[in-house]
């Protein structure tokens, strides 16, 4: 069964190629079928493989499949190969499973849009690239997937190409993440040069062999990889692109900017945790970045009115939790949260999409209102998602995964306590901002017309994801609740065990913080009157602490200025000057050709007199 692994990324790729080549020739139904079914089949195969994997794990808990030798140059051999181990297995399941659901949703959501086939071509390509990213057995394959998802993200954010604003957002996303990618690439160069291989497992092995803990090279390498991770996962300081990325169609936001691609950074760090263990400084930084991002994003989410932007900031914030978990060595917890987050965030986006597709793409929560009764399906889905996001204790998946993170942080000594505190405060904010959105959008007076009905292709994904958001947490329960460790067991061969807090106190505090947030939201926004006043503080958080402004001044404007001013190529003016000199000299010497014979004779005489002088002086 494992032998079919190569089909998992290939099927979506095939779907994409078919859609591209068939552009303009296929019917809408065929396009929808090609788009959704290719991922569906991939999911089926993935789940079958997973079943096989769980029932009879291969030796070393990893299955490797080499497709072909990419290149072998100067002692560096790189293959295009896939590696299935528990970590990539989890990721593969999320990508294909959630991916399929979102594709299904999109076939209905995108109906009537121009470029229907193109949309699915890009989306399929994305799935293929994402699968390559997580399945690749070496850094270069990973990087290929990494860049591939970046490209697809670019293409999909700018899917509605007629509006230049979308193009700008798309380019911003690509270029900002490319900055991180470049750091990653340099990291790969370092690894390839110093460790002699780009195979991930091999490199990790060699690193542990040749680099002592805390060695500068290991730290440097870890920081470079972290650079890539923060770019892709929209963490500080490369977080600015994610909110703008919401310009893409909502299924895109759900798939790429919530469930899968943005978690690639988390995956990367988890994948290379051996390196981070050698570089404590880098690991602390990971945790610090996570904590800072989750707070920053939480506050920013509070100051947004656009439902998708709220969700975007919440994504940043939740990935911050995952980073925090990675920073404190709670590897399993990070992956657990990644998993549950994929469910409930996809659910949130899809239900938000389900709302907006009935509201003529109105995304301002203050223009919604009272939707709970009019769009019950969307309401319940959104509510379940919000509860999971706010980690409503006991009944949601988000609760268990977030508790796992916070418990890991609590257990990680004094610096972990600080991060724990940040996480708890973040939990409070999360409850506040998401239920602010729930109350404003779904309760109170209606402001906008609602039209149409949902088809099964919308309802089915919402239902499945709702179920997963509720029950998904049960695979991993803390000691206080029966200590189920299905996921940890699965991941045990690839990730070190997570430290867990023995005490119940932190758990209670964190639960209470979330509830407090929800409660405060209920108090404040049960009867929302009008959009918030634009105080300086509000503007500050609305603009996510002004990073865009700062980067604009520091980087974008100078480059634009230089490009505009330098467009005529200053170097060329040097050559122009030479040409001008030649022409001027020509004009000057040409005057000597006056046509007057006496002048010419004088020239002759002068020449001769000079020659005689040279001969006489010598």
């Amino acid at each position, binding site marked *: 069964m494992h032998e079919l692994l190569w089909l998992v990324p290939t099927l979506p790729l095939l779907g994409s190629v078919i859609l*591209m080549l068939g*552009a*303009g020739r296929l019917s809408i139904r065929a396009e929808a079928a090609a788009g959704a079914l290719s991922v569906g089949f991939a999911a089926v195969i993935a789940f079958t493989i997973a079943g096989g994997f769980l029932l009879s794990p291969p030796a070393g808990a990893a299955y490797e499949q080499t497709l*072909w*030798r*990419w*290149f*072998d*140059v*100067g*002692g*560096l051999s790189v293959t*295009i190969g896939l590696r299935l181990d528990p970590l990539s297995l989890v990721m593969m399941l999320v990508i294909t499973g959630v991916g399929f659901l979102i594709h299904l949703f999109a076939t209905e959501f995108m109906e009537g849009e121009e470029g229907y086939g193109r949309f699915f071509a890009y989306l399929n390509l994305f799935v293929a690239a994402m699968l390559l990213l997580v399945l690749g057995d070496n850094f*270069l394959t990973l*990087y*290929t997937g990494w*860049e*591939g998802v970046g*490209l697809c993200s*670019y293409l999909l954010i*700018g899917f509605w*190409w*007629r*509006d*230049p604003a979308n*193009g*700008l957002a*798309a*380019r911003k996303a*690509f*270029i900002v993440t*490319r*900055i991180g*990618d*470049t750091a990653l*690439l*340099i990291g790969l*160069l*370092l690894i*390839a*040069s*110093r460790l*002699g291989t780009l195979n991930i497992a091999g490199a990790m092995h060699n690193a542990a062999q040749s680099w002592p803990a805390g060695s500068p090279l290991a730290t440097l390498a870890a920081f470079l990889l972290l650079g890539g991770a923060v770019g892709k996962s929209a963490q500080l300081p490369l977080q600015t692109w994610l909110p703008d990325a919401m310009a893409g169609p909502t299924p895109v936001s759900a798939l790429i900017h919530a469930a899968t691609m943005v978690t690639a950074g988390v995956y990367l760090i988890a994948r290379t945790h051996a390196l981070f263990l050698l570089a404590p400084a880098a690991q602390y930084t990971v945790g610090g970045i996570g904590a800072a991002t989750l707070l920053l994003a939480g506050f920013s989410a509070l100051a947004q009115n656009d439902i998708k932007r709220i969700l975007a900031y919440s994504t940043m914030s939740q990935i911050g939790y995952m980073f925090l978990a990675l920073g404190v060595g709670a590897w399993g917890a990070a992956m657990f949260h990644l998993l549950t987050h994929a469910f409930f965030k996809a659910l949130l986006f899809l239900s938000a999409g389900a709302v907006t597709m009935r509201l003529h793409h109105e995304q301002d929560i203050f223009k919604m209102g009272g939707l709970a009764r009019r769009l019950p399906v969307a309401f319940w889905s959104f509510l379940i998602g919000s509860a999971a996001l706010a980690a409503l204790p006991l009944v949601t998946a988000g609760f268990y995964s977030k508790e796992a993170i916070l418990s890991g942080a609590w257990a990680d000594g004094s610096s972990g306590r600080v991060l724990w505190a940040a996480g708890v405060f973040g939990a409070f904010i999360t409850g506040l901002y998401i239920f602010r959105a729930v109350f404003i959008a779904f309760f109170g007076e209606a402001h906008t017309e609602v039209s149409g009905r949902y088809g099964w292709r919308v309802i089915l994904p919402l239902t499945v994801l709702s179920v997963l958001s509720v029950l998904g947490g049960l695979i991993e329960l803390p000691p206080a609740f029966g200590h189920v460790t299905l996921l940890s067991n699965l991941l045990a061969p690839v990730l070190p065990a997570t430290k867990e807090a023995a005490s119940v106190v932190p758990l209670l505090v964190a639960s209470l913080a979330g509830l407090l947030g929800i409660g405060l939201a209920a108090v404040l926004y049960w009867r929302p009157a009008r959009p918030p006043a634009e105080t300086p503080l509000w503007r500050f958080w609305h603009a996510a602490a002004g990073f865009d402004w700062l980067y604009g001044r520091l980087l974008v404007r100078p*480059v634009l200025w*230089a*490009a*505009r*001013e*330098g*467009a005529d*190529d200053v*170097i*060329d003016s*040097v*050559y122009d000057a030479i040409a001008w000199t030649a022409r001027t000299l020509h004009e000057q010497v040409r005057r000597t050709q006056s046509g007057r014979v006496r002048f010419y004779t004088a020239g002759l005489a002068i020449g001769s007199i000079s020659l005689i002088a040279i001969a006489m002086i010598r």
Partner: protein
Amino acid sequence: MNMLLILLLLIPAIGGVLAWLSGARHPDWPRWIAIFALAADLLLTLPLIGRAVMPGQSAWITSIDLPWIPQLGISFELNLDGLSLVLILLTIVLGLVSVVISWSEITERVGLFHANLLWATTGVIGVFLALDLFLFFFFWELMLVPMYFLIALWGHEHRFYAAIKFVIFTQGSSLLMLVAILALVFIHQRATGHLTFDYLALLGTKMSSATAFWLMLGFFIAFAVKLPAVPFHTWLPDAHTEAPTAGSVLLAGVLLKTGAYGLLRFVVPLFPAAAHEFAPVAMTLGVAGILYGALLAFGQNDMKRMIAYSSVSHMGFVLLGVFAWNTLALQGVVVQMLAHGVSTGALFILVGALQERIHTRDMRLMGGLWGAMPRLSGFGMIFAIASLGLPGLGNFIGEFLILLGSFRASVPFTVVASLGLVAGAAYALLLVQRAFHGRTTAQPGSAKPFDLTARHIAVMGGLVLAIIGLGLYPQPVFDQVAPGLAALQHEGTPPGNTPMEGQP
């Protein structure tokens, strides 16, 4: 007597004459003659592929050495190794592409056009084959003339200016090279009493390090101009912009490669110590080219100019890689050359097609072309992202290996150079945004722009396959050029240095 290499030169040369003569009566004959000539060349070359890849064999696949000007120690010496072979294949293929895409663009003086095209191809093939320094110089100069005519006669508005600029830059620098060649030959003659222009004999000529430096510089400048490296690049945007599409394709795809080839074949092996001393300067120029080219590409409004500056940026990688001088970097250079030839050539073809349809290259007048020409735009997108170095496409392999190689030679240069990847993304996506995306503007001068024709689609499809092939399975290229590069590397490593090879 192995006539193969001579045939390789004779067929396009004679084809050129025939094309010229036949053009007066039958406008289509020159096209077919050109296609047949190039196809015949291709057929001759194909059996050579895969030869001399076994270790332990001589790097030369085939060679020929005829007396030419025996009085001056000059012989008609052609040698083919994997590197030459790969570049010749690129030349022939892009030559064919040029013929096909000129079918509807060139309607005046068809005979002369194809004659020049074939002669330029002849010159370039000669450059890649010649191992006698004089013969090399002969071909080096020979390719200049038809290229000049291609730009000056069939170019756009400022074609004369651009063509003359092109010739003056190249000619000025190549005369420096001639002086250096002669000085080298005389030094060799004084040392051995033997007057010869044979490259293989001149390898390892002993001279003082100051002399070696100046001679190396003479060669370097000639190749740096052709490459082009900052600050000798300014002819390129003009030449590219004003040339007809086929001219731009040949310029970008093939002519620039002769500069890189010269650096590889001559500069470093002939003057190993001087070249290694000079490497930091050359790498600085390379990095400067990468960033400066990208910045200027970003600032252009003329689409062809933008692509031209992107070429400067890409060739900066080549310069960086050559002077990193290790297997990884050199292999990267080869792939980068091929990939740049394909991707930039393709972009020029698209701009040409676009200009044929909407009569402008100014991106301020474009926008939203995706609606009217989805195929053209789709291809444009593919090659734009190829040129920004997306993994899976050929350019990435080149850039990655160059960076990996140069990382071993110098970390700071590599780090700065990799910023070029970000800059590349900036201009490539801007191109896509300004031309294909955004609001549809009124297209000047055309009622209804039509999408690519079948002929163009076939060509572009082929180029897409080529760039993907290079990106996903470049190993045949590596195998093909490895022996040649190994020999070069052996020559080009100064005795004191241990080659930066083997286990990393």
